[in-house]
């Protein structure tokens, strides 16, 4: 505050954009939005998996290929991997303090979430359209 006298910028103006992640509440909010989406999606998914216990492949494929399951599975995949990489990012930022290692881990987590999410989504689409 003391150097405010030597600057015409307001305290808010100087603080703006200087949060630790430079993105304000976006990370926090995205984690909550995906969390809320995952509550019904996961309850539906677990109930479905339970009802598919021991089911033969054609029955599993038919379930995945049905429009409602396919769309809900794709939504689940997007929400799960987005939520997971947001959470893992916080864990890494909390515990890994060597800047280089931290950067590599963050990029690895984000890359892995993107790739595995893509593989899962592609598999659903392949069953839905190629069946």
């Amino acid at each position, binding site marked *: 505050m003391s150097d405010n006298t030597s600057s015409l910028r307001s305290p808010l103006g100087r603080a703006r954009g200087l949060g630790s992640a430079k993105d304000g509440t976006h990370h926090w909010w995205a984690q*909550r939005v995906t*969390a*809320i989406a*995952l*509550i019904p999606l*996961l*309850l539906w998914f*677990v109930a479905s*998996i*339970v*009802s*598919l*216990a*021991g*089911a033969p*492949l054609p029955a*599993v*494929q038919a379930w*995945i290929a049905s429009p409602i399951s396919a769309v809900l*599975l794709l939504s689940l995949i997007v929400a*799960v*991997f987005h939520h*997971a990489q947001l*959470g*893992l990012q916080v*864990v890494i930022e909390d515990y890994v303090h060597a800047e280089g290692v931290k950067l590599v881990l963050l990029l690895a987590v984000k890359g892995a979430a993107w790739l*595995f999410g893509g*593989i*899962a989504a*592609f*598999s*659903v689409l*392949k*069953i839905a359209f*190629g069946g």
Partner: protein
Amino acid sequence: MANDQTRAAGGKRPRPLSPHLQVYRLPVTALSSITHRATGVALSVGTLLLVCWLVAAANGPAAFASVSAFIGSPIGMVLLFGWSLALFYHLGNGIRHLFWDAGHGFDIATAEKSAYAVIAFAVGATLLAWIVAFAVLGGR
């Protein structure tokens, strides 16, 4: 530091110390907090099981048979059971966090009660899911 008590006796307020994790029994609220994080990390890895299952289903009978055999094996069952328990814990405790985000249940008495409620929910929901799954399996 060792001379905290001496300093306290000398009239100064003792500095707050971090709990020494090997000798300090964590309160249930602290345990539920670190378990949320641990289950989150475990679930991130466990989600790869879901990816394997989807890839196998897309790939055909041979791949699906081997993934099914792995899931049905003792180690696969243990992993899946752990996955389901972690999932229901993280789900229940996540809802607890959402209530906190909305400004509810932050006092210690309520937070302790809700921690036990989450543990009870996780165990109950996991057992229910497995009982129904085995009933479905037995009916085939």
